[in-house]
């Protein structure tokens, strides 16, 4: 059982965020492993452990000057990582990213490709399915549970009303939601082992991709300050909090005035 997990290093979502001079997310600060990706890494590790053989490898696209975030996924137990880093890829859209990751993955023959349903910085949420289409694989998306039975992967897929049990034969692409499993903490041994696990950095040329097929095809024409409502009254509760809320609900006519 060989599983590839798509991971991404992103600016810490807890830190203040801004746009750069080209109106794209400013990525110049410290990058961390997208927490959303840690769930896919954990699912992959458990599937390989259950199969009793195989390996978990990582693929990523982005700057490779600091791969601390990638190393943290290796510390969880992934065996190796491939990072595509190339100035040609600055401003790449999701389809371009999918083409690049597909080029890496098609050099191997994984049984399963895992990704988060979406990244926590761009929230685009189309890349895994674009990747599946480029590799001509089934995509089982929004999974809250993933099991492999023989040559079939079975997931619980979130729906508006509950969930569907969805199955496909391997190989396949599966996207997992946060909360599908509890990601393990890296052990000291894992952190030490991760230092010597291979992180291979490759370029667009290494992958044999034609740079002309990778040009961004969308423009940001403006960034505007949105009209948001300003904060209303803030009351520090000293025992009257519930009554004050009730008074507000009366004022906006959600509840009728005092009955007594």
């Amino acid at each position: 059982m060989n599983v590839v997990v798509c991971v991404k290093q992103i600016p810490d979502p807890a830190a203040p965020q801004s746009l750069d001079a080209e109106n794209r997310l400013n990525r110049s600060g410290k990058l961390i492993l997208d927490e959303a990706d840690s769930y896919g890494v954990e699912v992959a590790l458990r599937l390989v452990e259950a199969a009793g053989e195989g390996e978990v490898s990582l693929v990523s696209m982005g700057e490779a000057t600091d791969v601390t975030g990638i190393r943290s996924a290796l510390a969880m137990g992934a065996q190796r990582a491939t990072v595509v880093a190339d100035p040609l890829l600055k401003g790449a859209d999701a389809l371009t990213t999918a083409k690049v990751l597909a080029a890496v993955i098609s050099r191997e023959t994984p049984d399963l490709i895992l990704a988060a349903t979406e990244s926590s910085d761009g929230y685009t949420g189309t890349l895994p399915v674009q990747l599946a289409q480029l590799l001509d694989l089934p995509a089982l998306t929004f999974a809250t549970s993933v099991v492999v039975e023989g040559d079939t992967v079975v997931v619980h897929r979130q729906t508006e009303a509950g969930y569907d049990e969805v199955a496909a034969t391997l190989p396949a692409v599966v996207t997992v939601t946060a909360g599908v499993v509890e990601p393990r903490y890296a052990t000291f041994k894992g952190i030490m082992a991760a230092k010597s696990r291979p992180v291979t950095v490759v370029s667009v040329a290494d992958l044999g991709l034609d740079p002309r097929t990778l040009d961004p095809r969308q423009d940001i024409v403006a960034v505007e300050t949105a009209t948001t409502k300003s904060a209303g009254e803030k009351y520090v509760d000293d025992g009257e909090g519930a009554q004050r809320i009730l008074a507000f609900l009366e004022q906006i006519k959600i509840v009728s005035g005092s009955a007594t």
Partner: protein
Amino acid sequence: MSISNLWVVAEPSGTDVTSTSKELVSEARRLGATVTAVSWGAQGASIAQIVGAFGAQRLVDLGDLGAVLPASVVAATLASLLKDESPDAVLIPASNDGRDIAGRVSALLDTPVLTNVTGLRVVDGLETEHPVFGGTQTVVARLRAPGPGLIVVRAKSFVAEGTASGGAERVRVAPTPPSTRAATIRASHVEERTGPALEDAAVVVSGGRGLGDAASYGMVEELARLLNGAPGASRAIVDAGWVPYSHQVGQTGKTVKPDLYIACGISGATQHMVGMKGASNIVAINKDPDAPIFAISDFGVVGDVHTVLPALISALKSRS
């Protein structure tokens, strides 16, 4: 250049289509376009009437797709149709299936997708509005590529308005078999839910991590019931397994625009705020005076949900 021709992916839901699908058909008509809806399932006749009433001239009906996950078949068919007809754009609901369809069509036609769209502008072609940083800023984008733009639109970005027009012309199209192996739906599980639907409720009461434990969510449900509302949740407590995903409000959950939204123990992560900031009135209860949720609240109580909610519930009960 004006907009002359728009297609809308109209996602079936029983004998109806989803409310986001109706919003998109309405908006496409308001932009002055000839509107083609694309749908599937066994209810084509009924759906032709519905999309027609919201402004579509034509329904492309793929018919019953059986037990397969629809995205690969719908995308293969759309991609082959879009090679013959070239609408200005395809508007797609930001649902699970909608996002899957958009991703596949994008790869099949080698055309990018614009996602998380909450507004459209006609300025020499189509421009799209994308909220960023919790909705404090709006990025306006446009596609440079030739060919139909693929635009994935969030729920409740537009108002669904019926028109006096009749049903749409129903054109049955045999689905294009996808090259990809199918993913098959083996079974569907529906979670029981009472009271108004979350996305339609006039009052939504939501709980977050500040509730402390799953059992405390009972207070949220009780307050929602007393206000004839629906209970909602932040992603944090859905991920923690306290409540089902169908309760989730936010970027990856439902978008709600109720008259009143009460956020209980929710700090106000960007992920959550984009799903509820359109509420007419927002009340927040949170221990942390600096919680971002207070910045968009009409009335905020800095306090403990474990004291404020029981008092509010008992006060409402004593009135009824």
